[in-house]
């Protein structure tokens, strides 16, 4: 069952991430792909994540697909203009890559080529519209394509953005632009997320809640301080602290698994997106503890 079919069937889906490395030695990445395939429904392949130059998403999507892991092509608007983006979308399509996640992308100042010229010729909402247009056999200028695409397109949303109203307005623009599914910024407060979902449920889209495993209370404090839209509640920080150094990671995994289990059992959303950031081997453990394997 494909990712799209899984979502449409009402199955509680799980996606994770494959991060292309910087350089041509992909052995570790291939190992991560092997760890994830057969367990999750699809894997996002990140696009020069955090504006750090790496192998492009498209090539790694193809490798993941050939190895039996369904890819979601992440596409940011930071590095390519409208011609480059459309051209890569057509390229993805002929390779058989049909899931795309449209994002604006972190600014070059966050990355390792700070002197680069940021592109942002278009942005996430406009990119979703372009994908929709390619699916209907036209490029963004309205010219006919020789053969259309069949993308299943998604977008991202930050349920705990502050202020939230402009973020919700953008969410709605993304829905209207053709987004079929959303993956969220990492969430740690199920009750707050429930409030967001009450709003999101008014729209015909699937929502996968984002997860980043907390390795320690220090990491939680770091996320609270430096990562936009992330709010780790104090009781979780206390729980990690009480676990002590040795058991902090295991406690973090338990917290994630517990939250995922609750989302699934109470049918709060349609699935989860686990951003392991180097701990891909922990994804199956989380899934097991959440009762999903």
């Amino acid at each position, binding site marked *: 069952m494909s990712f799209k079919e899984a979502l449409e069937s009402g199955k509680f889906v799980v996606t994770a991430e494959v991060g292309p490395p910087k350089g041509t030695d992909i052995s570790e990445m291939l190992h991560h792909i092997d760890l994830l395939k057969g367990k999750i429904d699809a894997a996002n392949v990140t696009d020069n994540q955090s504006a750090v130059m790496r192998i492009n998403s498209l090539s790694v999507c193809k490798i993941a697909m050939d190895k039996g892991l369904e890819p979601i092509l992440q596409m940011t608007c*930071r590095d390519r203009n*409208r011609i480059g983006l459309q051209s890569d979308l057509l390229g993805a399509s002929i390779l058989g890559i049909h899931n795309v996640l449209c*994002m*604006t992308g*972190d*600014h070059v*100042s*966050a990355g390792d080529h700070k002197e680069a010229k*940021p592109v*942002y*010729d*278009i*942005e*996430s*909402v*406009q990119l979703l*519209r372009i994908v929709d247009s390619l699916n209907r056999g036209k490029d*963004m200028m309205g010219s006919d394509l020789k053969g259309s695409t069949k993308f299943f397109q998604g977008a*991202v*949303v*930050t349920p705990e*953005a*502050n*202020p939230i*109203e*402009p*973020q919700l*307005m*953008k969410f*709605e*623009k993304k829905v*209207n*632009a053709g987004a079929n599914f959303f993956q969220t*910024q990492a969430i740690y407060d199920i009750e707050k997320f429930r409030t967001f979902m009450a709003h999101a449920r008014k729209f015909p889209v699937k929502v996968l809640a984002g997860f980043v495993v907390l390795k320690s209370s220090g990491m939680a404090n770091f996320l609270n301080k430096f990562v*936009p*839209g992330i709010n780790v509640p104090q009781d979780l920080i206390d729980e990690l602290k009480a676990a002590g150094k040795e058991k902090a990671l295991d406690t973090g995994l338990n917290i994630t698994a517990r939250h995922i289990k609750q989302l699934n059992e109470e049918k709060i959303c349609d699935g989860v997106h686990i951003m392991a950031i180097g701990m891909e081997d922990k994804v199956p453990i989380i899934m097991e503890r959440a009762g999903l394997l």
Partner: protein
Amino acid sequence: MIITKQKDPNSILETISKYKSFFLIGCSECASLCGTGNEDALKDMAGFLKSNGKEVTGMMVPKTGCQTLGTKIELKKDKDACEAADAIIVMSCGAGTQSATEIFKDKPVYPANDSLFLGNMTRFQMFDERCSLCGECIIGKTAGICPITNCPKGLLVGPCGGMSDGKCEVSPDTPCAWVRIYERQKALGNLEEMKEVIEPKDWSKGQKPGTLATRKDKKELTE
């Protein structure tokens, strides 16, 4: 106005190392307000050059450096001093510098300033960029606040995921342009307007180099 900042004087010395004598040109408009092209700035530069073994044959602050013809006429009275110089150093923006390039057909011209942006003077010698001269103004749709300039990503459809507590992902001391637009639209009772998805920008409208003729006879000439 055009905001300029003087280059590191040592880097100027490095670029002009081949030459011995110089004529200095400033500008009484923007560069004077920025303190980079006024009489005092020119005098300081002359002093600096002399203390580094260079000669200054003369200096002049034209009314409007970017007005090529006017500057050319004003320079007539300094003909001899200009001729005596190996090279010209211009202390205005890049446009004024290129007026000099056009005027001095056979003399090298060097910029003393970096041209930064089109800016608003918020207080004396404090400048902020508000407009990037994109060729087609869209701020009628964004509460009179330019997202192309005030948002480092130039986004047209709302805040990015990097916005945090109303502040910008790129410069955390600056408010997010889209939060400002949102708040102003809300205060004006125009929040509905923010629901419109602004079309991708037509960059051909701002194609470089820009050219415009509003004078009637010139219009006819170019048609």
